[in-house]
């Protein structure tokens, strides 16, 4: 299939190419993917869990999942980077809250590809700057609500309980924050 505009052709060291090499047992391909996304996955896990050892276990577990499931990975259903980021967040929150996984791996694998290229380190740095700037631009109460939701996995009622604000206020804050972020990221 010809690449659609904006979609990069499949290269041997693209995420898709590397996944195929992992299926063929190519250890170096797994190493390249680890170097590409391992830091990002670890940063999320460390931020959620606060503990290096626990975050490293989550990181290790996610990359084990990656190669165990590599043969089932379908780039048409979702991007690898999305899958890794969602897994990093969900597995860390599940662990922090000692709960069973809330979103199964197959669900996560069917995430739509964000129309953004984050395979290179430079692209990741640029994306990190964009996301942080977008969050910083939110009023503090909205930013706090988003961070509690995203990095602690709290529901709107739990956020209200944590911050002591009325549930309606929390709902409004989350809606406003998402509306602002939607204009930046088209959520």
């Amino acid at each position: 299939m010809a690449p659609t505009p904006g979609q990069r052709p499949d290269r041997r060291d693209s995420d898709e190419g590397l996944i195929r090499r992992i299926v063929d047992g190519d250890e170096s391909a797994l190493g390249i993917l680890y170097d590409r996304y391992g830091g990002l996955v670890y940063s999320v896990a460390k931020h959620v869990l606060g503990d290096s050892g626990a975050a490293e276990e989550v990181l290790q577990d996610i990359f084990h999942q990656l190669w165990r499931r590599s043969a089932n990975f379908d780039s048409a259903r979702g991007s690898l980077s999305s899958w890794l980021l969602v897994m990093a967040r969900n597995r860390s929150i599940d662990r922090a809250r000692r709960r069973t996984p809330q979103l199964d791996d197959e669900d996560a694998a069917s995430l739509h590809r964000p129309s953004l290229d984050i395979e290179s380190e430079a692209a990741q740095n640029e994306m990190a700057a964009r996301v942080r700037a977008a969050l910083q631009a939110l009023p503090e109460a909205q930013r706090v609500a988003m961070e509690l939701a995203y990095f602690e996995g709290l529901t709107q009622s739990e956020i209200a309980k944590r911050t002591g604000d009325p549930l309606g206020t929390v709902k409004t804050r989350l809606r406003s924050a998402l509306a602002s972020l939607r204009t930046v990221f088209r959520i």
Partner: protein
Amino acid sequence: MNEHHQFEEEIALYGLGVLDGADKAELEGHLYACSACRDKLAASRGTLALLAFAAPAVKPSPIVRERILEAFKARGGGPIRSAPPAPERRGLRMAAWVLVWAAVGFLLVAAATWLAVDNRRLSRRLSDLELAHSQLEAASRELEAVNARARAALEILTAPQTVQVDLSPAAVHPEPHGKVFYNPGKGLLFYATHLRSLSPGQTYELWLIPAQGAPVDAGIFNTDSIGNGQVILPPLPSGLTAKVFAVTIEPRGGVPAPTGPKVLIGSVS
């Protein structure tokens, strides 16, 4: 897709994982039935994943990389599969053997050995594949069971004969709310919110009060930390015409006929 514009905000909130209680139950009911909104949810989750970049960048210990690659070598990927010898090189090697040993017999032995090794490799591969196949079959059976339950729930929500009943506070607690989806031929779904938590010796019990006859037990349930409870597809006699639904507080394990105070009640309109 435009007719579902009103759900966009809720879908993003659901994708973020913040919806709970009645808001969550209501959207899940819609998502069961609407593939366009399920696609929107998938897209929303994919983009929300980018919020991960807000985490301060830190580096893991180099030993994690080693552990992952070691595990890959030892369990799944096996040793790095070295590139197979190029055909020309193999030809040269065989020619050298002919020159050195000048024995066709040896080539046969070498070929037999190679085939035996290859056979062992293929056998290992086959047992790996058989294992993967049995795992896939188990996963598939599990998925089918989940799908069947989801289909049954969807049928109740979408069937024309399904009645919707709002249950209001009876007096004990000012804020609880429940919703029943009931179809005499297909079954019952029930969600409740803002119920108070009960003592360990108590449980909530849902009752279907038919047009004629005694109340029928439609399932017991407990609430989560924020007072949400649910009863999904309880075993019920088929074809019962419901007049009223009610929730009572009963001793743990439930009772065959209601004895405790009613906390929610609603009539079929």
